[in-house]
């Protein structure tokens, strides 16, 4: 990669969201902002190659994108004389420095993750507008045709405009619920990367996990006091840290208890642990932790154990207990049962898992957990049937390979 291309890639990561956000505020139109930002970056590639990278690339891009947007509005106004050019605002001043909560990027994030949009539209719009991924990249990420993805984004932008979804950070009263909506979008992106579904995709999509972490870091930077933002970032970092040990050379998922812990990423673990300690201090001061903070703490227990035998299972079970009280979902109950198996034995855990059948019969992890517990209890025949069901329902290639080997090893 040439120096100029490298500079454009770096600036794209650092400045894309800022440029789109500033333009959206100025022109009140996501479509114009997106198109002008994309054109400005395309121009940057050409011009910087000839003239060199400008001293302040972000300001150069914002100014160029502003001009592109004004050009487009002028062109459209010529076609449509109902609009008067006089209505346009000319403003070449550099954007004023604003406090974090006044940052345009935060407005952009809340608009893209608005609860009036379908979840799949929120994902796509966030990756495009905030993350700067291209349409083909997003289409590939979610295994849909590029035309379908383009339509989804176009429809979402049209709804934002027609229904007047505001470009604003929600009021303090609504903020916790809306932040949790944003975090849900980012966690979905991360999870799709961490356990990718589909037969033709890599089992771990590092591009998606990295993008989710990058965007969560951005929100952390914009909302440093929010405990759940810190919790989600810690959670992602501690999961991502185990990525080098998670898939074997043969393409098989490696369970947590069989992973080579020396291969874990020490820097990511250290950063994740720092965030968890920060939130533990807040909890000690009386701030009740939310679900991402508790999940991060659970992961910190795992990443603190150099050997799986050193895992503090009573701590894990206690944290899951706390989580169940906050979020009584059957999936949390299933994960708690997995920890209970280590503390109280597989028989106690199996009884707890079996109680979840009504709600989780269509979920591969329910059957995989039962299969493992039945195997440990020596009930090979039932275990085999549970593995069969789990394999049938699993969508991740590495996980299917792992489950198949486990089943075939049954006596």
């Amino acid at each position, binding site marked *: 990669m040439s120096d100029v291309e490298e500079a454009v890639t770096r600036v794209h990561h650092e400045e894309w969201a800022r440029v789109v956000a500033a333009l959206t505020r100025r022109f009140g139109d996501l479509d114009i902002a997106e198109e002008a930002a994309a054109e400005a970056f395309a121009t940057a590639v050409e011009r910087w190659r000839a003239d060199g990278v400008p001293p302040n690339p972000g300001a150069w891009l914002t100014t160029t994108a502003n001009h592109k947007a004004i050009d487009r509005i002028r062109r459209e106004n010529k076609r449509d004389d109902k609009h008067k050019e006089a209505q346009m605002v000319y403003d070449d001043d550099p954007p004023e420095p604003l406090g974090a909560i006044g940052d345009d990027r935060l407005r952009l994030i809340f608009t893209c993750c*608005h*609860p*009036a949009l379908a979840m799949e539209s929120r994902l796509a719009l966030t990756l495009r507008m905030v993350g700067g991924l291209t349409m083909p990249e997003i289409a590939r990420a979610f295994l849909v045709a590029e035309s379908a993805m383009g339509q989804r984004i176009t429809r979402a932008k049209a709804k934002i405009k*027609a*229904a*007047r*979804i*505001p470009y*604003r950070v*929600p009021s303090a009263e*609504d903020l916790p619920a809306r932040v949790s909506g944003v975090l849900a979008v980012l966690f979905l992106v991360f999870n799709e990367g961490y356990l990718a579904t589909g037969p033709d995709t890599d089992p771990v999509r590092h591009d998606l996990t990295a993008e989710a972490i990058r965007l969560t870091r951005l929100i952390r930077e914009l909302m440093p006091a929010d405990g759940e933002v810190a919790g989600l970032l810690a959670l992602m970092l501690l999961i991502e840290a185990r990525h080098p040990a998670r898939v074997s050379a043969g393409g098989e998922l490696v369970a947590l208890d069989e992973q080579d812990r020396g291969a874990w990423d020490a820097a990511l673990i250290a950063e994740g642990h720092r965030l968890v300690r920060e939130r533990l201090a807040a909890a000690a001061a009386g701030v009740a932790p939310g679900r991402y903070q508790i999940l991060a703490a659970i992961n910190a227990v795992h990443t603190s154990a150099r050997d799986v035998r050193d895992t503090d299972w009573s701590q894990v079970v206690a944290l899951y207990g706390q989580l169940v009280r906050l979020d009584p979902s059957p999936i949390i109950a299933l994960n708690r049962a997995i920890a209970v198996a280590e503390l109280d034995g597989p028989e106690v855990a199996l009884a707890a898992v079996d109680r979840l059948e009504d709600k989780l019969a269509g979920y591969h992890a329910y059957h995989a957990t039962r299969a493992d517990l039945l195997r440990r209890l020596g009930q090979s025949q039932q275990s085999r049937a549970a593995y069969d069901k789990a394999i049938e329902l699993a969508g991740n290639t590495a996980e299917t390979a792992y489950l198949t080997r486990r089943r075939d090893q049954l006596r």
Partner: protein
Amino acid sequence: MQYLVSVIDDKSNPGSTDRQPAISAFNERLIADGYWVFAGGLADTTTATVIDNRGEQAVFSDGPFVESKEYLVGVWVWEAPDLDVALKLATEASKVCDRKIEVRPFQ
């Protein structure tokens, strides 16, 4: 910005019938806060008549244009600065009416 706010009932699981006092109080507030443009409850769908005069002769037919389990029981028109304000009011309206609410912007 004006929004059409539709109150939706469900024939197989109708909302409670004692909501009128609460709805009246809610309407008073909508008027006082400047959101209220129009409101009206509708008679049963069986009282509807559909007219089609696209052809040579007008054709009248008895009943609603679409038969469905869910149907419109009333509408509001609200004036609100943006969708967040409308959704917040609609969230209250759903409790007040004990029914689902659809919010749709006018063009």
